């Protein structure tokens, strides 16, 4: 397993390059960067829209966790599926969703992915294999195992990836689902995005083990720790787990150590962690900055190229918000539509 090998140790001359530089061509590597920017700017755009009262309810931003979302999904096809969490915008974009329809959903419009019924917490794009965010911590884990059961039974060759947080690892659903995936050797990858806190409760206060990956042993599956802010490490561990799953060798638990910059949700007073801690992560471990530095070091992109991506993303976000604004709201008369499957 990739363990704690550092991407920085790689040399530019080929052999010892970090995983992604061996696996993907430059266009793909730039596309990964674009997606990371897209996630960040999407969330910044959503945050701003929320502040301006265009989005209501609450939302959970994953700013700071972009490498984890993008890296984990790099080895997945559109047919492969994911289940996601309340903090699911990044997964949704990484898996290929269109930010237009995501914004439209947040604005509660009929053009949204959930026709305005779901909002941030239920964002989903089934067409790119995202079975949905989930408002219930741990709720998606057994569902992913069920999707993997389908893959195995129907021999589709698909892999399912289940994202969840460190807090979710203390839910019974985690335990039951991992056990079943293991005994039935299902093609599923469990990704615990450990950002240090379940809402306000640190892993140290909530979880009996130091590394959540250590719990993999209780299900006789590999447990892997990656630096979730280093794209290549994430992508490499993910690819190994995906390959293993696709080969019929069963599930893997990956713990992706990362950090969220924003509060848990819109009601967070941030009393449970220090400013210094947050700044340390933002200043020296930002996943986008780390990846950009690497890309430049390896001569894959230059400053201007990065700026071009940034600007292109900015336009995409602005267009997405505009699309959402212009889209129609659902009609009250349709309130009870979609509760049941309408006869064709």
């Amino acid at each position: 397993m990739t363990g704690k090998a550092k991407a920085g140790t790689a040399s530019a001359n080929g052999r010892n390059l970090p995983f992604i530089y061996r696996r993907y061509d430059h266009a793909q590597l730039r596309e990964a960067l674009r997606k990371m920017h897209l996630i960040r700017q999407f969330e910044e755009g959503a945050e701003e829209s929320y502040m301006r009262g265009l989005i209501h309810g609450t939302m959970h931003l994953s700013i700071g966790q972009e490498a984890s979302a993008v890296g984990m999904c790099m080895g997945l096809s559109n047919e492969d599926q994911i289940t996601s969490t309340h903090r699911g915008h990044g997964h949704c974009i990484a898996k290929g969703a269109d930010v237009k329809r995501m914004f439209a959903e947040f604005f509660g419009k009929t053009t949204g992915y959930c026709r305005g019924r779901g909002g941030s917490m239920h964002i989903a794009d089934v067409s790119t294999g995202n079975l949905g965010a989930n408002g219930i911590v741990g709720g998606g884990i057994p569902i992913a195992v069920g999707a993997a059961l389908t893959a195995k039974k129907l021999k589709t060759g698909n892999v399912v990836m289940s994202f969840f947080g460190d807090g979710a690892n203390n839910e019974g659903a985690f335990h039951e689902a991992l056990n079943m995936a293991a005994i039935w050797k299902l093609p599923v990858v469990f990704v615990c995005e450990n950002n240090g806190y379940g809402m306000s409760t640190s892993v140290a206060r909530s979880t009996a083990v130091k590394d959540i990956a250590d719990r993999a042993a209780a299900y006789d599956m590999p447990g892997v720790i990656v630096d979730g802010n280093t794209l290549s490490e994430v992508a490499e561990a993910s690819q190994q787990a995906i390959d293993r799953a696709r080969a019929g060798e069963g599930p893997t638990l990956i713990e992706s150590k990362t950090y969220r910059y924003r509060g848990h949700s819109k009601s967070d007073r941030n009393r449970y962690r220090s400013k210094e801690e947050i700044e340390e992560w933002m200043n020296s471990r930002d996943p986008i900055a780390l990846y950009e530095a690497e890309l430049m070091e390896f001569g894959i992109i230059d400053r201007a190229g990065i700026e071009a991506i940034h600007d292109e993303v900015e336009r995409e976000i602005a267009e997405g918000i505009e699309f959402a604004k212009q889209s129609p709201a659902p009609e009250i008369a349709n309130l009870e539509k979609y509760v049941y499957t309408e006869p064709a």
Partner: protein
Amino acid sequence: MDAATKTLETGTRELTYAQAIQEAMAIAMERDERVFLMGEDIGVYGGAFQVSGDLVERFGPERVMDTPISELGGAGVAVGAALTGLRPIFEFQFSDFATLAMEQIVNQAAKMRYMLGGAVSVPLVMRFPAGSGTGAAAQHSQSLEAWLGHVPGLKVVQPATPEDAKGLLLAAIEDPDPVMIFEHKLLYKMKGHVPEGHYTTPIGKADIRRPGTDLTIVATSIMVHKALEAAEKLAGEGIEAEVIDLRTIRPMDRRTIIESVCKTSRLLCVYEAVKTLGIGAEISALIAESEAFDYLDAPIVRLGGAETPIPYNPDLEKATVPQVDGIFAAARDLATGVR
């Protein structure tokens, strides 16, 4: 239960309620590769109530899957499988254990389609052996169908006869949405006519099991048989009760009940679950707010379970839920104006 059984012997071939369910599952599995069974000890053990019986021998352990004792996770696996193209039939060993899986049933299965704006369906069937009468005490005897009846996105049925057990199960399997089936454990060994081959009983349709003019008795599950037995006794006193088998709790067949009450002007609801907030509350309320209200000649009477957990002692246990004599007496008083 003799009287009740007799009214069902309209056909030739008899099966038990459990056999009828098993036959439905076998037919569905033969017709559709995507159908499979999940549950605790449904394989070689044949299920706690021998409902799956020897199906594992016919269809193999991949389609008759024993799960670990993990109700929440197991239900979630079933939801995920249904969401992605399979048609799971999930058996709870006792309906009481659904308390462990309410999250997946209510927050996920029931709401997934709605939350995703119609982008998915969850064609899931769950089976819940329910009810008291087996001496298994408070944690193995509950009737919790009202909980799920309160949840939009679910359909909830309670077959009372072997014929309906098969027909409603086949309808449930073919339904695109999650259908919850409450089966009364004491019915499993009950015999009745069951048509051969494939057929479905419509979800959402009540059945008038016995026509009558003097009062309407709406009953669910095993209470249908007790009500029919009471109705026979009532006939001996010149009182003709119309007995309606509700069959589906959600969506409820308002029309059939309303029409019956407009005709008889009196309504008795009989159900085994705890009286307060049980299914009889809904039946009563729907009549009280309907056009049938103006036809009512007497208060609407509910006979439900006592306000207590199910006790172990068999005499206490029996006293907890409506019995034939109690139904008879309540119906007679209602029909003859005694309050």
